[in-house]
């Protein structure tokens, strides 16, 4: 049996709000295989972002273990986690989070600085990805000169440029109109098929989550359902 790309076991995450402890995630266990295209759905406050943060190694669980390609990331130092993120994980954000003072080209190039690539190789890779997302003509433009859809395409190129194993996207289409949102989903799906990169994206929009090959629904910090969709119809795998 193959090792899953991501393995979560008994994950709990709680925050202290004032004097009250709030449980964001409760006993979440989950396996994600390489190459999956997964939607994380649920209402606001259901724990989608918290789960993405933990899988993205930018936060640590209160209890439980997270394994990324067999490696227990909960035990790693901040520096090792930074190194891991720069090589294995790409991020796409709801508000695009591009660096405003850098051009589209430079934004895409940025993550490669930590991947130890030579200048020529770096530039070639950036050009390839800008071409891939259809923005080779906007390479010199800064984020404020691009539309929302174009900015998210730059963000996708930036997430993909290091050839990560996993791309995490938190509400990647929430700030876009439905047509553009559809195009962004198409692009992510296309990249997933072409490169085999695992995509895990959070959304509360059913039109978006239905486009995934697997849909994990969170409710009050727990997995309420985990559906795998092949061709048609939906295939029910697990429900809590």
């Amino acid at each position: 049996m193959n090792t899953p790309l991501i393995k979560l076991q008994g994950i709990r995450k709680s925050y202290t709000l004032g004097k009250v402890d709030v449980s964001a995630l409760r006993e979440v266990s989950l396996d994600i295989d390489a190459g999956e295209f997964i939607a994380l759905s649920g209402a606001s406050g259901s724990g989608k972002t918290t789960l993405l943060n933990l899988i993205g190694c930018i936060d640590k669980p209160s209890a439980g273990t997270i394994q990324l390609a067999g490696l227990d990331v909960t035990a790693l130092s901040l520096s090792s986690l930074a190194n891991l993120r720069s090589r294995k994980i790409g991020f796409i954000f709801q508000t695009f989070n591009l660096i405003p003072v850098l051009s589209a080209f430079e934004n895409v190039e940025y993550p490669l600085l930590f991947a130890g690539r030579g200048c020529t190789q770096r530039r070639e890779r950036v050009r390839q990805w800008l071409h891939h997302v259809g923005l080779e003509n906007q390479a010199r433009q800064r984020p404020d000169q691009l539309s929302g859809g174009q900015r998210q395409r730059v963000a996708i190129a930036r997430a993909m440029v290091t050839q990560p194993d996993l791309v995490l996207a938190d509400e990647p289409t929430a700030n876009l109109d439905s047509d553009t949102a559809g195009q962004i989903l198409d692009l992510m799906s296309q990249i997933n098929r072409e490169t085999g990169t695992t995509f895990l994206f959070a959304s509360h929009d059913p039109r978006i989550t239905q486009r995934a090959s697997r849909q994990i629904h969170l409710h009050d910090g727990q997995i309420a359902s985990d559906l795998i969709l092949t061709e048609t119809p939906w295939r029910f795998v697990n429900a809590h």
Partner: protein
Amino acid sequence: MLTRIALRNVFRNRRRSAITMVVLVVGATALILFGGYKEISFYGLRESTIRNRVGHLQIYKKGFLNSESQKPLEFGLENVTELRRAIENDARVEMTVPQISLMGLVTNGEKSETFLATGVDADKDQKMSAQRLVAGESISDKETDGVIVGELLARSMNVKPGDFLTLMTTTVSGSLNGLDVRVRGTFATGMKEFDERAIKMPLAGAQQLLQTQKIERLLVLLKKTDETDGVKTTLESQFVQNHWDLEIRDWSVLATYYHQVRNIFNGIFGFLGIIVFLIVIVSVANTIILSIFERTREIGTLMAMGTRRRQIWAMFFLEGLMIGVAGGFLGIAVGSAAGELINQAHIQLPPPPGYTTGYNLRIMLKPSILITVMVLSSITATLASVLPALKASRLKIVDALGHI
């Protein structure tokens, strides 16, 4: 890339960076102008003290400095011709000037005042231009009883050029002697207390009044002040070689007033520097803190992509450094231009306390001041960014990404 980001962020909020830059430039300009004013004042005071009064070096008979004379010129110098020739042979020496100081009473027949006279070589005294002639003419070696009188003393004694006064003092043998002198002119040095008591007379006249052939001291004037130490060393070894019982003092020991003024000015300059330093620290820190607040989510994004905490710190640190260096350069340019403008404007300042004449406001744009201002500006702005940069680098990624 981080340097590029830092540089571009300096220009991101132009208005805020401009305000910070203005603070830096105003601070740098203030330091340059005050520093330049201080330097020209030091230079002017030093040179006028040396060239008009004390000379670069003063030579006395051994014992003069440490012994209390019982009678005038007890430790005076005799037969200085050979000594003067030996000293003047040195190419660094401009001239030697023999002098005698004496005190006594001056009277116009109706009123008496104390006086402080200096017997000088008339020709050399004119070269030293120790004083500004207000009326009449200068002393001459041909007229041994012709004197010039301090402007305020002349007013007090109610004399003008051509009038007569009588000087009375104790001779080298301890007896009283008097000499009728003719007022050839009146002069001003700018120092009120001195001008109320001062008389200048030919050396021969002073020797006649004191009934001696001795002189009190020999002043040595050099072509360049910087050569004082070198000439002093040469002369000291010359004295030892020739078995001359002489001792020597340089201007720095004699110019106590110069050092007092210098200490006061340096204190004020230091205080001003601290104020500017604090203003710049607060201003730059405020800019960086606001910048971090605005860019919190950006910091979170950079860290999520694998940017190390020390790199985030370095980025904001660099921003502070860049603001400081740019502000320093701009400050030097504006400060130098302002200094040049002031120098061209020939602004006349009122007389300082104790002086009777005003002077031109001048700013000396000394490279050392400009470099100090540049370094101070850069260091201050950089230091100001250290703590905010540390704060930025310690942000939790999740909190930073969730920052609105």
